[in-house]
């Protein structure tokens, strides 16, 4: 349900306060630290593949997706442009269902599409996972400003760490570098598990964990999209069946 429109315009200071609250939430989130670690690894990778520090910073601002950036950095110098573009794109299919699930929570009756462009771009797994948990408790007219603050608060450590990693490249032992790369799957798994309070979420998570590697092993192509559709639909069907039986 879209909440009834409030006639009072949102006061400027309360939008600023919601943005600031989003940024504070970001810095108290485990993701700020996890992203810092992850992007140290990616910055070091960019250095090793011969990109400049400015290029690394711009890639985080524009792409803001760790798996896509790793693919781009490691293949840009060796693969044909179309192959790299396709690999990047396939790694980012997740953003479409994430944005579709998010935007109805952000909007109210006064929201224009242009108000949603910044939140759409700032959407990444970390921001999305925190927002899906925290947004329902917030008044609807504060949500966009809060989300923009949260996204800004999480992209900032990533941008900074990308530059730091660029300069510490080569000084990081292999085991430590592996530990940095392991931060992403570990923290993603637990934050999504923390968000999963309902049967449908828990089933989608558990089935996706099992079906994902199976689909990758079959080499059908678009394996993540198929994982999402198969596991998500089974979880949804079980949820509907259980509702029908109650």
């Amino acid at each position, binding site marked *: 349900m879209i909440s009834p429109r409030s006639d009072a315009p949102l006061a400027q200071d309360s939008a600023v306060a919601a943005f600031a609250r989003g940024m504070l939430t970001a810095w108290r989130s485990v993701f700020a630290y996890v992203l810092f670690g992850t992007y140290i690894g990616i910055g070091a990778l960019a250095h090793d593949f011969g990109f400049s520090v400015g290029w690394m910073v711009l890639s985080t601002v*524009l792409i803001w997706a760790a798996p896509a950036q790793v693919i781009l950095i490691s293949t840009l110098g060796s693969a044909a*442009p179309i192959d790299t573009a396709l690999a990047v794109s396939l790694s980012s299919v997740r953003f479409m269902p994430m944005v579709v699930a998010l935007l109805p929570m952000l909007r109210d009756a006064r929201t224009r*599409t242009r108000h949603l462009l910044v939140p759409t771009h700032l959407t990444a*797994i970390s921001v999305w996972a925190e927002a899906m948990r925290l947004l329902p408790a917030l008044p609807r007219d504060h949500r966009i400003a809060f989300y923009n603050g949260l996204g800004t608060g999480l992209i900032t450590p990533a941008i900074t760490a990308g530059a730091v990693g660029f300069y510490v490249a080569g000084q990081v032992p292999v085991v430590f570098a592996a530990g940095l790369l392991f931060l992403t799957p570990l923290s993603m798994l637990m934050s999504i598990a923390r968000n999963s309070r309902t049967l*449908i979420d828990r089933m989608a*998570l558990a089935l996706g964990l099992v079906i994902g590697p199976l689909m990758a092993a079959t080499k059908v192509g678009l394996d993540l999209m198929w994982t999402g559709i198969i*596991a998500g639909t089974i979880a949804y069907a079980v949820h509907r069946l259980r509702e029908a039986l109650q």
Partner: protein
Amino acid sequence: MSTAVAQLGPYLALILVGFLPNEIWRLLGLLVARGLDEESEIVVWVRAVATAILAGVIAQLIVTSTGALAAIPLAVRVAAVVAGFLAFLLIRRSVFAGVAIGEAVLILGALALPP
């Protein structure tokens, strides 16, 4: 085969081969979400699909690792994620505790069992 950097230079390659193929999915989401209600059945289904895709990404990052992580045996990676998840469940669903334990098991396992 001519590479993207050789043909376009690093910055144009970043826009055409990195930014646009990535951003297209966010913008498609923006287009599709128009007029959809938070409680509608389609959004409930899409949310399950998004969660399952993320789970698939996580599992693939652990199982088919690249870079420095590929140098660590699969058994150590799986043991680390299981230990981290158990710690998360036992210690008040704390993501921080789970990440710390998972990382500790990964690094100790890698030092104890070199490939």
